[in-house]
């Protein structure tokens, strides 16, 4: 088998093996190690709880709540992140004047804002949407800022020599060459938006999957907590894959897409 073939097949073989190994070790730790199953439930119990999740009808309404918070927050972050990032990238004087503020906001632990958001927006989904948006905003905005500034000078000169208008340069060159940066920001952003929604629900929730996790904790039902974490991870994975797929669709020409394809192929 050629080296490339090995590279392509490798993750499909190793991942299931690793998962099985983890489950086996987990089971061994529980049964041999005499761990209290209430604290550290065996994989079988978690699997049972996981399948049980979908018997109760309200899991779907909680899932829908959390997904709405993530997606609306993420959408807000994309729109504001793109607009602010482009503005700051194109207007150096604006960037220079607000940079200290951006740095302060960026290094501030943003989950600390959730009590404020609860005071302002209540215990419903609005406060979680804003936390999601706030977390996802920064990577998207900063990547856009970098992207707008990274347009190749030679390509700008091509547009200039063709007597292109500002509008044409924006549409045909800048908006295209910034796309890899946008998707890099979005890939980080979707993960942070998910984190934002769940942490919001932990702290001040009456619905959503984060709320369910906290309830299961309060009931000391560790197996249910594990099952919910598993479900949340699967949702996060799906969201990430959707963004990744969008990237493959929109920028097939970029190295981050074709480079991977070539090492895998």
């Amino acid at each position, binding site marked *: 088998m050629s080296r490339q073939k090995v590279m392509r097949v490798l993750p499909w073989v190793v991942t299931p093996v690793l998962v099985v190994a983890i489950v086996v070790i987990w089971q061994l730790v529980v049964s041999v190690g005499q761990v209290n199953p209430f604290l550290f439930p065996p994989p079988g119990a978690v699997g049972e709880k996981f399948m049980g999740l979908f018997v109760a009808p309200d899991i779907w309404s909680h899932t829908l709540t959390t997904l709405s918070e993530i997606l609306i927050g993420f959408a807000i972050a994309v729109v504001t992140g793109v607009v602010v990032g482009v503005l700051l990238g194109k207007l150096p004087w604006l960037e220079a004047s607000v940079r200290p503020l951006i740095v302060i906001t960026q290094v501030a632990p943003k989950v600390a804002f959730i009590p404020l958001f609860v005071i302002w927006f209540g215990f419903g989904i609005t406060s979680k949407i804003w936390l999601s948006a706030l977390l996802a905003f920064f990577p998207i905005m900063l990547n856009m800022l970098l992207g707008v500034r990274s347009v*190749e000078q*030679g*390509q700008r*000169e*091509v547009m*200039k*020599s*063709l*007597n*292109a208008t500002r509008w*044409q340069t924006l549409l*045909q*060159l800048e908006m*295209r*060459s910034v*796309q890899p940066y946008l998707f890099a920001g979005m890939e980080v952003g979707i993960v942070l938006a998910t984190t934002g929604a769940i942490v919001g629900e932990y702290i001040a929730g009456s619905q959503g999957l984060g709320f369910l996790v906290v309830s299961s904790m309060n009931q000391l039902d560790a197996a249910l907590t594990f099952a919910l974490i598993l479900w949340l991870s699967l949702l996060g994975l799906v969201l990430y894959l959707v963004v990744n797929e969008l990237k493959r669709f929109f*920028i097939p*020409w*970029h*190295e981050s897409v*074709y480079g991977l394809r070539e090492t895998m192929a």
Partner: protein
Amino acid sequence: MPTMSTQTPTPPAPITGATDAVPRLNIQGLGRDFITRSGTTHAVSGVDLSIQRGEFVALIGRSGCGKTTLLRMIGGLLAPTAGTIEVDGNNLWRGTTVDESAITKLGFVFQESNLFPWLSVLDNIALPMKLRGASKRDRRARASELADLVGLGGFEKSYPRELSGGMRQRAAIARSLSTEPDLLLMDEPFGALDALTRERMNLELQRIVLETTSTVVFVTHDIPEAVFLADRVVHMTPRPGRVRQVLPVVEPKPRTVNSMTTPEFNDIVRNLRHDIDEEN
């Protein structure tokens, strides 16, 4: 007049300015100063140059002689600080802004291909036409013709990353030709290519220029390249950037690889090299 090659058929007569009194490009007293911390640099100073239709003019000289600065002023990328540039009798520069009707007659080829990686070869070639609002159908038709002309037939759907350096430069040349420019400006277009590819590109460029009867200003620091391609070689000297001499190369076109080994060709190259060496 001895011909440099006996292998080629009689070349088509080059179109010169005989039928038209207005030169394609007329440069008078052109200068460009750069103000730096250490004072004013005269990158280009007092350049007069007139180029007729169908002429191929090579600008040659050491680094810093102002040849690229001169070309960028002709290309509307850099405003002169003195003098005038006329394209077909129309002033290119009004102060620091370019005249739209004059700049649309130009085509520019850079040292790097500067293709857009998100566009296919065909769409890259068609970009200038797109900016001018040509219909998709016209763009496609013309771009495929040009792809064939520069030897990229069959690669229309490829992306720039899939092409070699020489092929990318061919695509860039096709892009610059897509608006049928009256004047083609080339800034060391083959400078980044290896010697063998470069030689082949020179032959290709000569063929393309003869087929399209283009007028070309070609910047290079490669003496044989300049002599091989040009009807006139303009030798520039630095500090300040001036035209030192203009050498006609009267050998008929098309020239072949064998042209480069004839005594006449070597005489011109040797004299030019001697003059450039004498600068110091």
